[in-house]
C-alpha cells in the first residue's frame, strides 16, 4: 500500500518503518474496542500523507517493477502508473478498496471520511482509471 501511495520502494519502506515506530509510541492510545487493522492502516495512511505533503506533490516514476513484454503485466504496470496519477485521497480510497480489499465503512474510519465520500472517491477513481486505460488497452474496455 505504501508503494502504491508513495510510488517508490524506499519511501514505502520508510513509511512502514515510521508506521511501526508510531504504533509503538501510541499503542497505549489504542482503544481495544476498535479494529487493530483499521488503527494500523490509519497510521500508515497518515504517514503516507505526511510524506506526500513533505514531498510537495512531486510524483515519482514507479520503480522496482519487473520489466516484461507480456500484455497482462504491461496492463498492470499501466494501472500502477494510472493509480499514481490519482489525487492523494482518491488514490488512498481506491488502493484501500481495490488493492487491499478493505470495506468502504472501514476505509471511512481509516481516512476519517464519511462512507458517502469514500464511495464517491472510489467511483471517480474508477472513472478516471477507465479513461486513462481506455486508449492504451482494449482489454479493459472490451
Amino acid at each position, binding site marked *: 500500500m505504501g508503494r502504491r501511495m508513495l510510488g517508490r520502494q524506499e519511501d514505502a519502506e520508510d513509511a512502514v518503518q515510521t508506521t511501526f515506530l508510531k504504533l509503538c509510541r501510541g499503542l497505549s492510545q489504542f482503544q481495544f474496542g476498535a479494529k487493530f487493522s483499521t488503527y494500523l492502516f490509519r497510521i500508515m495512511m497518515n504517514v503516507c500523507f505526511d510524506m506526500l505533503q513533505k514531498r510537495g506533490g512531486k510524483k515519482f516514476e514507479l520503480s522496482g517493477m519487473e520489466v516484461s513484454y507480456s500484455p497482462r503485466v504491461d496492463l498492470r504496470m499501466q494501472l500502477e502508473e494510472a493509480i499514481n496519477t490519482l489525487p492523494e485521497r482518491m488514490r488512498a480510497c*481506491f488502493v484501500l478498496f481495490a488493492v487491499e480489499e478493505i470495506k468502504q465503512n472501514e476505509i471511512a474510519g481509516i481516512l476519517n471520511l464519511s462512507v*458517502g465520500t469514500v*464511495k464517491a472517491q472510489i467511483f471517480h477513481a*474508477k472513472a478516471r482509471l*477507465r479513461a486513462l*486505460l481506455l486508449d492504451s488497452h482494449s482489454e*479493459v474496455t472490451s
Partner: protein
Amino acid sequence: MNCAFYQKYELGEMDERDFTLHLPACSECQNLVAQDTKILALAKNLRQPVAAPLLWAKIENSLRAEQQRRRRLRWLNFQERSWAIWRIAAVLLVAAGLGAYFLFKPQPNESRLLAGAALEQVEKKEREYAAAIAELERTALPQMAKLDIELMLLYRDRLETIEAQIVRCKETLATNPGNAHIRRYLLAALQDKKETLRELLQLAG
C-alpha cells in the same frame, strides 16, 4: 455517459435490487460494470508481497533505538528527579543546621558569666602571685646594695625593664581583660621578675 443509474448505484443512491433489475436492459451500465470489474480484478493482482529483506531488520533496529531512547529519557527523568531530591535534601540540611545553631547557640549573658568567672579566678591567682613577688622584692631590694656597682646597675636595669613590661601588660589588660595572650606575657614577666629577684638574693647572700 447517458445513463446515471450506475453512478447512483455506486454512490449508494440506488438499491442493489433496483440496479440488478435495470442492468439487463442497459448496455451502457453493463459495459461500465464489466470495465470496473476488470479494473478491480487487475488492482487485486497488484497486491503482491514485495521482497524487502532489510525492511524488518531496519524496523527492528529503529524499534530498538526507540526503546533505548525511551530508557535514556526515563533515566534522565530519574536523574532529574534525584537531583531535585538532593537539592531539597541539601536545603533542608542547611536549614536544619542553621536552626540547630540558633537553637543551641550559647547565650551572650551565659558566655559573659563564664568568661567572668574564669577571669576572676585568673585575676585572683595573678594577684596572689604578684603579692608573693612583691614580698620577695621587699626582701631582695635592700640586698642589692651589697652587690658590685656594675652588677647592681645591671640588675636594676633588668628589673626596670621587667617592670615596664608588667605595666604595659596591665594597661592593655585594663581595656581587654579577656585577652589570654597578654595574660601569658604578664605571667612570663612576673616569672622573670621572680627569677631575677631570686638570683639577686643568691648573689647578695
